[in-house]
Structures are given as C-alpha cells and as structure tokens.
C-alpha cells in the first residue's frame, strides 16, 4: 500500500529516498522501516524485511537525513513569551528541520535550579513537536557570582551548562565551574568574551564601525575570552564547547587547543557568520545586530573554511527572538540577537555545499550527528533502534525569506527578503510528520 507523508500510520516504510547518513558514512538509496516512532531497520540499497502489508511512502528523488539538532536556541519561556515561547520555538525548529534543540538558560527566572529545568523540559514534552533539551546556568541567576548546583541540574536533565549571553567575568569562578562540571559529567558551553573590551560596543570594530560612527566590539574581546576559556579547560582537564565563534583569531586558538594541546574542545558557529559581514550594517538595520557581531569578510571566509576542515564541529543558530517593537529602536538601543532556525539549513547549504566547498554528508554531520554526540542527545543516526527523527531536504528549491513564512513569533531575521537555495521539505519527529512545506511552495522535485 502506498501512502502519503501526510497520513503516516504507526508503522511504515520510507522507500526510494536518498539517505544521507554521516554515522555510517552512507549516501545512497535506502529503505527505512519505522514502527512506534523508532527505526526498526535500515537497509542501504536494498529492501527492508517488513511485511508486504506495511504501508510504504515513496520518496524517490528526495533526500532523507537525520533530523537536525540545534544546541543553541533562546525560546524565552518563562519570562519573555511575547518574543517566543516553547511552542512557537518548536514550530520554528521543525520548520527548519530540527528534531532536537537545546534551550539556553537566560529566561526569567533562569534555568539555574533543577525545578526550573524540570518544568521547562515538561513544557517541551507536552508540546511534543521535537526533542526539547535545556542548558543549565553556570552561576546562580546567571549573575557570575556563585556557582549553580550542577548535580541538581544534571539530575533534572540538563544537557550542558552555560551563562550564554554573558561570559563568566571572574576567571577563578570560571575555573571552578569547569572543574565542578567535569566531575558531574557535563560539558560547559562557553560564551567567551572579554567584557572590558566589548563594553559599549554595538558592531564589529573595524573599517565599517569607523565609517558608520558606531562604537566597536574588537575581535580581541572574543579572542581573549576564547584564549582564557581554552587555557582554563587545559588547566582543569575539563571538556569545553566554544559557542558562536565569529573571528579568525578564535579559530587559530581552537586549532592550537585541538591539535597541539589535545584537549576536549568542540566549537560551533552560526549561519549568519557564514553568510554576512559588517559591511551589511550600512543602513543600521537592527536585524543585523547580534553578539558576537558580524565580522569582516576575512573572518567570514575563515569561518567557512573552519567548518569545512572540522575546526568548527557544528552549526548552531543562536536563535534569539526579539519583538519588532524592541528591534525598531535606535541602533545602539536595540537588543542583540537574531532568529535563525528556519533559515539555518538553506544558508549553510548555500555557503558550504551548493558552493562546492564540502559534501552534503559533512554538512548533515555538523547539523545532526556532531551535536548529538557532543551533548549525548537522541538522534543524529539513522539506524535500527534509534528514534525516527528525520528530515527531508529539497536541494533544488529556491525560496524567499518573507515575514509570512516564518513560524517564530519574532521577525528579526538578518535574511529577510533574501532568496535562498535548499529547503527543508518535511520533518519527522519520533515517526510523526511534524512539518511539511505547503504544497503550493513545493518545487516539482518534492511534489514528485
């Protein structure tokens, strides 16, 4: 029996699609047998052993990959639900092909206690669109003064620890945080920044900040933070993850830490650092304002190269919704942050794969398997026994980023109006279809 994606029963076979699976290194036609949200069997280039009466979905000509995982999103709940909440955030996530997200703890109150984390995780399970994970705060109230209880946070189920949005300014405290987290078995995700250098700045310090007369944030403020945090990780033998890397100098430091020191470090960058530079700020658009800021063309090229060579392990969006009224302010008064879930794959695909710089398999790795392995999350693999978290990709689709296509509550995308290539056609979470591109905007390839 042939069925459509829109009517998936509890047991079915996805047949005829081209599987791109970094865990096995396989890229080719495959059949995937799903029952009760779990993958029963995967056969590369052959038929699965499902009985003939199990319904089959014909995915001929389509790309199937493990669902994407974004380890860096701000869903603003509790406290700032007018910007985003867990439900709208999840809708935005699945529209971007994500079946797992880690929510940052800068909520109000922040995720600095087991009970706060438990209620946030419960919200995610209730909404049940994708796997919702939490990052716990490094310090109480994210105030940078007193360590949070990592055992308590760990028991509640946090996947990582971070004070994201702010660095831990006190170096001795950061050292203790790394030591304690390592003992509990959690990776610290560092927002690395020397605040004394970046204070008062609103864009990258360089030619364009001089031209535009906007106070600058020097690359050195990020690089000093990265250097400090890497040195502390070496000193404490603690695992560390460097969030939102944006400068060439940070990459040099991460390469030394990885290859010469041999420490346990991973790094992420965001799609906007792959695509945009500080030059775009002519016009003072606050939807191009984020922290760290858009850097120079030389930095952008270095970031692209680092994703290709693996210095950057994963792509994370730093999805940071802000209401229109908050962004519609004088440039220096508008908050930092841009949304990114729904444009992440297309932007990364355009810069990295369509451009011929790296194979699709490697991009899928950086958007699914690598984050799953680093933070021990479900998904990232298309194999028997794994949850059926899958994404269908339409590599030929060209689409325009318009306000009405976005599922997020907020509209602060730096890509508004842009034509992008490559699109998430459908998202399957635990065997259920949780997103499908509207029929009228599907390209011929997807409809077939």
């Amino acid at each position, binding site marked *: 029996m042939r069925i459509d994606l829109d009517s998936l029963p509890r047991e079915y076979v996805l047949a005829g699609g081209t599987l791109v699976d970094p865990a096995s290194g396989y890229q080719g036609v495959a059949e995937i047998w799903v029952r009760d949200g779990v993958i029963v069997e995967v056969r590369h280039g052959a038929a699965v052993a499902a009985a003939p009466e199990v319904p089959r979905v014909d995915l001929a000509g389509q790309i199937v990959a493990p669902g994407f995982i974004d380890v860096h999103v701000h869903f603003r709940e509790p406290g700032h639900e007018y910007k985003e909440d867990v439900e709208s955030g999840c809708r935005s996530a699945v529209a971007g092909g994500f079946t797992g997200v880690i929510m940052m703890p800068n909520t109000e109150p922040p995720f600095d206690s087991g009970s706060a984390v438990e209620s946030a995780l419960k919200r995610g399970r209730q909404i049940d669109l994708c796997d919702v994970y939490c990052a716990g705060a490094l310090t109480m109230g994210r105030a940078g003064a007193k360590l949070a209880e990592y055992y308590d946070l760990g028991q509640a189920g946090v996947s990582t620890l971070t004070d994201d949005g702010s660095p831990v300014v006190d170096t001795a405290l950061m050292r203790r945080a790394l030591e304690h987290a390592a003992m509990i078995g959690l990776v610290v995700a560092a927002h690395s920044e020397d605040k004394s250098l970046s204070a*008062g700045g609103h864009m990258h310090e360089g030619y364009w*900040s*001089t031209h535009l*007369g906007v106070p600058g944030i020097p690359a050195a403020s990020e690089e000093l933070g990265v250097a400090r945090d890497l040195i502390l990780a070496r000193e404490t033998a603690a695992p560390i993850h460097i969030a939102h890397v944006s400068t060439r100098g940070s990459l040099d430091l991460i390469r030394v830490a990885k290859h010469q020191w041999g420490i346990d470090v991973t790094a992420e960058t965001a799609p906007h650092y792959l695509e945009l530079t500080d030059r775009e700020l002519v016009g*003072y658009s606050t939807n191009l304002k984020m922290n760290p800021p858009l850097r120079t063309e030389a930095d952008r090229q270095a970031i692209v190269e680092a994703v290709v060579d693996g210095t950057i392990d994963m792509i994370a969006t730093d999805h940071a919704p802000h209401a229109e009224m908050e962004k519609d302010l*004088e440039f220096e008064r508008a908050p930092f942050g841009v949304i990114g879930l729904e444009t992440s794959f297309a932007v990364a695909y355009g810069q990295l794969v369509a451009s011929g710089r790296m194979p699709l398999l490697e991009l899928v790795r950086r958007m699914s398997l690598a984050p799953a392995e680093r933070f021990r999350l479900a998904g990232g693999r298309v194999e028997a026994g794994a949850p059926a978290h899958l994404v269908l990709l339409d590599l030929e689709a060209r689409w325009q980023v318009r306000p009405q296509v976005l599922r997020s509550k907020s509209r602060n995308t730096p890509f508004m109006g842009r034509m992008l290539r490559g699109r998430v056609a459908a998202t399957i979470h635990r065997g259920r279809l949780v997103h499908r591109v509207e029929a009228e905007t599907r390209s011929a390839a997807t409809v077939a």
Partner: protein
Amino acid sequence: MSEQPRKHLLGLEGMNAREIYDMLDVARSFHEILERPVKKVPTLRGRSMINAFFEPSTRTRVSFELAQKRLSADTINISASGSSLSKGETLRDTVATLEAMKVDVIVIRHPVAGVPQMLAEGTRAAVVNAGDGCHEHPTQGLLDLYTMRERLGDLAGRRVTIVGDIAHSRVARSNIWGLKAVGAHITVCGPRTMMPKRVEDLGVHVDYDLRRAVRDADVINVLRIQLERQGTNLFPGAREYSRLFGISNEILAHTKPECFVMHPGPMNRGIEIAAEVADGPRQVILQQVTNGVAVRMAVCYLLGGGVSQLEDDARAPQAAPRAITTIGV
C-alpha cells in the same frame, strides 16, 4: 540647480563636489542677507520646522533656529527632557506624532549614529541631520567647507589637517567626506587612543606628530576634545594632551604663514587650543559661526520647500542666487 533636489540631508557621504558647491552657492546668497540691516526674508513663510534635539546643544540649535526664523518659517524646538520620549515613548512614535502635525522639516540631533537615516525611511518630512552619535554632522561640514572656500577659493588640492579625537568626532567624518568630494588632501592627527580603526581607509593620511601634520597645511581644523568622555581612560589628561596636540603659536610657527585655524566650538581654551591662538589673527572661529547660519538657511531653504520656486527660475543661468535675493527684497 540641475541636480534633483535632495529630500534629506543625512550626511556629506555620497555628495559630489557639484552638489556641495551648489549648496555653498545658495548659502553665499543668504550670507548677503545676513549683512543687511533687516535680516529676515519671507521665503519659507507658512513652512513649519521642528528642531528635535535629543542631546544637549546650544550653538547648533540656536543656529538652526535663527536660520529658520530669518526665512520666516514657523519653528519649534523640542529636547529629550521636555518630550514624551522621557515618558517611555519610542523615538519612532514621537516622530510619527510630529509628522502627523504636518511639519515640513525635522532637524534632528541624536546621540545614536544612524537615527536620522532611520527616521528618513519612515517620514514624509525632510530630515536634516544636526549630528548623530559619532557618525556625521553635515551642516558643520558644509559650514567648514564654506569657510575654507571663502579664504581659499577652489578647495581641490588644498591641504586640511584635522586635529583631535577623530574616533568620537562626527565633525571629523563630515569634514572628511566633504573635503574628499571637493578634492582636498586630508591629514588626521591626534592620539592613537582617539584614532578609529582603519581610518586611513577613509582616504586620509594619519600622522601622530602634530608639527609634521601641520607643516604643509592650508587649514588646521581643531576638534573639541572631551577628556571626560565616558569616564574611559582615553588619555592621561589635559596637560599631556595640550603638550602633544594643543594648537599654540609655537605650533603655528611651523606652518605656512597663510595657514589658518578653525574650531567648531565650544572651545576648551588651554587644552586643544591656546588662548593666544583662539584670540589671535590666524583663526576664523567666529566667521564659522556666522557662516553656519547662512549654510543652515540654505539647507532649510533647499529641503523645506523653497526648491520649487527656485526651479521655476532655474532656466536662466545664475538663477539660484538671484531668485533668493529677489525674494528677499
């Protein structure tokens, strides 16, 4: 006036020599009016202009206000403390409200760079930037060029040295754009801590040695120094600053004899400029103030609806200045 009239004056960046000189020509004809016993003309009668100053200012605000009054425009001043902005209203709402009252020109001074541009995108009124953050101060740039041109004629090939806190100066940026457009050579001079990153990419020469920087200059434009700025340690203090970068007679002895000194005011006597220079024969600081009124009359005239009348008469050569003087009779 063969060019299309400019709807807004947001900065000197992007203006060409012809556009700048056309504006200065109009300013010159208004300057003549300022020399008359009765300094008021009915040119902008019935036009309304708002001077919205979201940052303390006396001289620029007074200069605009006088310029508007001398053109018979109805003019209103608002400041941040006296406006609903201090009651939590957003800037965009404040300006939408002003626009709903049907003003023709909004002159805005704001501490954040880019605000005039943001407003220009959302209003039907003409927007004049009276200084935005560290970005631009185009009417100051125009009055500086006007003053230089009065003394030097064509500014192509002339050498202008700008001395002071370049990083935080919108006057410096507007001077740089304007002077580049008319073909002048620009040197910027000041402490390393006050030099913005990659400033040389704006097309200027950078020199940290004041004596060398002024040696070939036709003009020295001295910026006001704000040593108290943001409480940051930008410089050890006034004494160190004045010894390295203060313009004194001793410094002027290193210049060409015809080289003159400008300052946008207000001056810190004894810091960036010695009293002997501020009161001496080589400065044109008060002429700058007078010229500022003429330049702002020209700007308000060109953006405030005087243009259509000007264009009617523009078929004849030399029409622009004559049209204005005729109106003034």
